[in-house]
């Protein structure tokens, strides 16, 4: 899926609202993640369709048909345009939000902020405290109660 420049800007601007700035990180759009969203949508048809439908609906929505389009609206107007889509196209909107969350939470800058170790789960795995049979003290004293046949 190839977005036009206009669609790309629109996507970035919506992404900033879906995942807004926090601490030292800007919003998901300003972080430059629209490119990743476009790429993932091109690879996975379900996300591609959702992205296409949402961007199309957003550019046709009467409230955003102003000069400068969606990015030129004030925050309240942008929120209500998105809420309109959420209420009226829930299936596509949910997938669209998933798409944004996926690219956002794949980013190493985000991992660093939330304290998540980037990269594959293996070979490091995680440490857990060793098994300690003392935890069974109470339950193991209970009489067998399985039903006899």
């Amino acid at each position, binding site marked *: 899926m190839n977005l036009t420049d206009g669609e790309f800007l629109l996507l970035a601007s919506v992404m900033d609202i879906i995942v807004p700035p926090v601490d030292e990180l800007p919003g998901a759009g300003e972080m430059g993640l629209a490119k990743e969203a476009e790429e993932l949508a091109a690879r996975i048809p379900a996300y591609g369709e959702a992205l296409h439908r949402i961007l199309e609906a957003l550019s046709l929505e009467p409230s955003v048909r102003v000069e400068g389009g969606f990015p030129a609206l004030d925050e309240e107007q942008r929120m209500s345009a998105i809420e309109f889509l959420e209420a009226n196209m829930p299936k596509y909107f949910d997938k669209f939000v998933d798409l944004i969350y996926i690219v956002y939470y*794949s980013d190493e800058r*985000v991992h660093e902020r939330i304290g998540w170790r980037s990269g594959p789960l*293996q*070979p490091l795995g995680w*440490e857990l405290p060793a098994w300690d049979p003392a935890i069974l003290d109470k*339950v193991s004293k209970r009489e067998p109660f399985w039903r*006899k046949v």
Partner: protein
Amino acid sequence: MTITHPSTDILILGSGASGAAVAWRLSKSGFNVVCLEQGRWIKPEEFPNEHADWEIQARTNWAFDPNVRALDVDYPLNVDESPIDPLMFNAVGGSTIHWTAHTPRFHPSDFRVKTLDGVADDWPLSYDELEPYYDAYDALMGCSGINGDPANPRRKERPMPPIPIGQDGERMARAFDRLGWHWWPSDSYVNSVPYRGRQACNNCGNTGLGCSRGAKGQTDVAIWPEAIANGVELRTESRVFRVETDAEGKATGASYYDADGEENFQPANAVVLAMNGIGSPRIMLNSTSGAYPNGLCNSSGLLGKNLMFHPYAMVSGLFDDGLQTYKGPLANMILCQEFYETNPSKDFVRGYTYQLARSSGPISTACGYMFGRVPWGADHHAEFKRRFGDVTVLGVIGEDLPEEHNRIELDPKLTDSNGIPSPKVFYTLSDNSRRQLDDAVENAETALREAGAAHVLATRLLKAAGWHLMGTARMGDDPTTSVVDRWGQTHDADNIFVVDGSVFVTCAAVNPTPTIGALALRTADYIDRERADLKS
């Protein structure tokens, strides 16, 4: 032109939990064995836990749901008439590649529900008869666990000690103790220590997507290497479309498509179906002939019927002590069987198990697999922080009772990439199951609050939860009310066997695979002992 192969004694269809067990057992007894598997070998480096984008793969090409993965090797399923989506994996190892390897056994009472509770049917065999085969399958796949559970009969020591239950497991265990409810460390086919050449688990957490360390009991690593070394031929990328029969209805072999789409025929003295509770009846329904106008060995009319799933409710607790609940095998901590048996004061029969599960990585947290989706917008970051690594789940596995209208049929239009008809699933949740799940949700809330959960969220029926596929070629002594006999041999043909979850009479309230494996070993034992006539 059809390619015809030299004949074999035993032809197994499917290489998952059951097919591998039969292959292994018969490989040591002088039978020639060939196994046809539609999937391919997956190399350790291909598993998602070796890749940084593992969470994306979990939602796309490695999704649990074959309709989401939609790979050529998968067959699509029509689920328009089912509130539960069947899940499975198609590769060497079958769904054991994907499974979380939580491995409780049936209780003795599960084999006698008609006698005890007046519902469904008794099995034609008992817990005691199956016990040695449970032990053998535990040893083969590698079971970690500990004796002394008051909710289950004492049994042979597990081959490995329990895997650690983690601080999150301990928190719930203490809550169950305070409530006076049962709990016990889960039996798991996950290595707590190195076992039979496979490494110990290092708690990476991604148990449901294949283990690149070989620490999980997947048949591709736990069984197949030995079976192949013993002489079994495992032929991959071989998609069976028909079991062929002669005029008397005896199997002569199976027809399949190879990787190039060419038609092949593998002759055999006997055929063993092990393509799971949906895959086997699908191919049997597709194997019509003069002898079997309604599907292979379907004189009872029950083939494809009595589908059971274990309808699954998920009750998630949100804690606030930062235990990082994504650390550790996904669903192998502890279980609670306080409500396992019929309680006459309740408005339902039979009962349920709680299987505890952990949370997962940041994408699953945000998209809401374990605790609903994190809201977008201004509250997003605060809500994400509250949930990430702070969720523990009580999964409810309720006993689904067999009902004929819950079934699979062949879809008139939908096919796989070879043009073989796909299954259509018809399933409605029974009133008994609904009441059972409601009760379980209420009790789970009590337990999670006792453990200190600040918020509890219940998904009363999880759609993407058809991981247990059972009942569609049920076992019994009476050929008019069952498809296979007590040995898994079809009533209609003495050289056709079914060994997967299809043969379940009832499904108990536990994950089914140790029982599937034990039954498969028992059938193989029977073939070895009683059916020398099947040797060339």
